[in-house]
């Protein structure tokens, strides 16, 4: 008689750290598991809770998430479009291109308005950052950066500086000088340092603090003067693609969205993740607060935009249409919050009626993906940046 033979895994993903490595077959509370030698040692010394395995933790996490969804739905007594039935239907919108800004040689990846309501900054794939007076089409400053793919740019509240960053893993602040001979690139100051590309940046209420989001999965708050890291925000499990500051009275929170399909709301003071929403089916490309600060919208590769209510703690609307096949890369609200402008990868901008959930109109004009849409500070116009190397102002 020969010995019985058993099946044993000798190499593969460890049940504790999921790294592929040589495995030890052990028992934890009668359950057979496979740990790598490092985890066995750690467990033996630290004492993992009896009966805990990666599988059981994963299951517990999923059960809790389902319970959370149920709790959220308990107070869901009415839908947004139902409440909005009594609101007047929107009259036909007549929005046309009023300006076309040509000057970038390559895909324009980002744009931001200045508080003076007519200037804007834009950045492109070839590393050029341009400051325009969009009203006169004048280019006021042009800064060539040494890196390509400048994914993020922002105008400082004072109008005296701009921030930009991208594939160089940094976000730099450049003071705007009107001296024609001044080499702006030389005055560039590195403020933020990440370990992967910078996907988004925004000044807080002053020129002195900068908030950034990065492909390394974190967001961070920086002191511009010293470049010091004031707070970092961990919680996303994949690239963070976008962030937006809350327009609230106490001004302490911001929302971020990323490739892990999650939108997280953070407390800037403590670094804590205070709320999380996970209903998109693909990467979240852009997040933007509703003007009152009680809600935010997100645009995603799953071709939908969604509206989340922060007090009810749930998704309250999905903006989608059968004929919209391509992902939405950017979104912004009109001044009253009634309209949501969203730029898509099929070169169009769809305008949604936020309350009724229907599409109000569609804007054609760009000849390649729309990478960014932003409503001007006084709500008079919509600015859009596109991979067709132009920017457009619509009103």
């Amino acid at each position: 008689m020969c010995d019985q033979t058993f099946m044993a895994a000798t190499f593969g993903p460890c049940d504790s750290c999921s790294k592929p490595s040589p495995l030890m077959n052990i028992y934890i509370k009668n359950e057979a598991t496979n740990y790598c030698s490092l985890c066995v040692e750690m467990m033996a010394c630290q004492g993992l809770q009896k009966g805990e395995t990666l599988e059981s933790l994963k299951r517990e996490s999923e059960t809790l998430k389902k319970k959370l969804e149920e709790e959220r739905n308990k107070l869901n007594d009415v839908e947004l479009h139902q409440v909005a039935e009594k609101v007047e239907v929107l009259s036909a919108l007549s929005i046309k291109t009023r300006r076309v800004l040509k000057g970038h040689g390559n895909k324009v990846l980002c744009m931001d308005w200045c508080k003076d309501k007519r200037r804007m900054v834009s950045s492109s794939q070839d590393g050029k950052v341009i400051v325009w007076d969009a009203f006169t089409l004048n280019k006021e400053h042009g800064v060539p950066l040494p890196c390509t793919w400048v994914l993020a740019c922002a105008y400082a509240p004072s109008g005296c500086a701009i921030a930009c960053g991208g594939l160089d893993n940094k976000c730099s602040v450049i003071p705007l000088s009107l001296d024609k001979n001044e080499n702006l690139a030389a005055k560039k100051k590195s403020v933020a340092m990440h370990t992967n590309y910078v996907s988004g940046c925004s000044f807080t209420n002053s020129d002195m603090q900068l908030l950034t989001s990065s492909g390394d999965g974190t967001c961070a708050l920086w002191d511009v003067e010293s470049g010091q890291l004031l707070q970092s925000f961990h919680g996303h499990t994949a690239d963070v693609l976008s962030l937006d500051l809350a327009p609230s009275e106490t001004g302490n929170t911001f929302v971020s969205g990323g490739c892990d399909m999650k939108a997280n709301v953070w407390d800037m003071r403590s670094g804590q993740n205070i709320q999380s929403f996970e209903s998109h089916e693909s990467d979240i490309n852009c997040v933007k607060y509703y003007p009152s600060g009680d809600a935010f919208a997100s645009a995603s590769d799953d071709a939908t935009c969604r509206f989340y209510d922060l007090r009810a703690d749930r998704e309250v609307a999905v903006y989608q249409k059968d004929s919209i096949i391509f992902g939405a890369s950017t979104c912004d609200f009109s001044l009253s919050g009634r309209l949501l402008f969203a730029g898509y990868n099929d070169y169009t901008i769809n305008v949604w009626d936020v309350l009724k959930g229907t599409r109000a109109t569609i804007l054609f004009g760009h000849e390649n993906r729309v990478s960014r849409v932003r409503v001007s500070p006084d709500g008079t116009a919509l600015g859009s940046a596109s991979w067709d190397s132009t920017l457009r102002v619509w009103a």
Partner: protein
Amino acid sequence: MTINTLAKGGCHREQMACFRKMEKVIVAMQDPDMGMKMRNQRLLITVIPHAMTGHDIITWLTHKYRISEEEALHLGNMLVKYGYIYPLKEPRCLVLRPDESPYRFQTPYFWTSTRWPASELDYAIYLAKKNIRKQGELMEYEKERYSLLHKRINHTWDFVVMQAREQLRASKQRRKADRIVLECQEQAYWLINRPPPGVNNVLDTGLERPNNFSCRVTLNSDYYKREIEACRKALGRNRVKSSICLEGFLKYSEQYLNHDPIMQGCLPSNPWISDDTAHWTMNAEIVPVPTRLRVERWSFSFMELLNDAMGRREFMTYLEKEFSAENLYFWQACEDIRHGENSKIVEKVEDVYKNFLAPGAARWVNIDSKTMDKTLEGIKRPHRFVMDDAQMHIYFLMKKDSYPRYLKSDLYKNMLAKAIVPQETKKSVFPFMRRQRHSSPSPAQTATQAAEEEGLAKGAGANSAAGSHF
């Protein structure tokens, strides 16, 4: 610079999702009952079966998705751009024409998603076939690419030429109509996967993002424990009933409707439409007389009042009358600490203590003892948020008490009464004559000027001091 690696299998997630959706549309279009009516098209002397006109495609899309013709044209154009439908006339021009131009569905074998990504080997074989068939008469860019490939994958060249010859031999045995169809389909495929220079590459997706499964964070027990903790916290959260929250959005949008230029227009006119900057001039940060809409907005919320420089100034005037201006000064000083430079925090906190919190201070603010104690304790080790509690206390004090009284005061009512309502600019008689667009001083300039003036003053001071020596 970091480089992201493509996910396993080399397929780009975002693109794949779009391909699947487009394929659903295509399949629906070919449905025997609800799909499109196709007919035979004549191309010179050959008859191509199963073709449709551009006009048919647009009509079908318009009906199926209940969209406008313009949108249907755009959607149809996308289908052509991505190679699911190709044109029979002018095959190199991948554009949907809304007329009788004939189009045909691409065979699934040649869908971009089927053979993703298009390999160099396949492209080499295709160019070799074309080269043989046209006896060397390839397009310029094709010739360049052919020689480039010849250099790059030289070691496989025998295989490439052999395959090309075999495929050509097999095609010669097909009916002429089938052969033409296959050639068109293959050409369409390569026009998309290897676009000629100057043509947009629709498959360009920019920076590659990692697959969702290769997380930046390892999904180990610590990660799940954190998730569980976060879920538990979230479960204990206070939530508000939907009906209440949603009413809030309705109210907000209604209140701000008249202030939304894109929806209701703005007076005297939208500068972007009329090229007249009067609207901006009238609503500049400080004006002698503000507009009525602006003054009305101050009554929407306390934040609106404070965010407007003029509103804040008016409110300060009111508080001075009420002898409670120190509250607003205090709030402003706290904001300055919160949003200012790191290096100045200690100094600013000192100032705030001296001016507002110390016993007998010039502008002493009335905070409850608990908050005062906590703040004074915190001042011993000053940090950015040390004034937060006190600031919030004073903010809500102003919001609940002074602000509502301000709105009822004569000061506010007078401001509202004398506020201007601009006249709507009449549309110009000659609409094609464009007004001159005037430039405005850059915000950077005013700051530079201010700095210069400061510098000059300092310089003058120094000079006069030096001058007195003579």
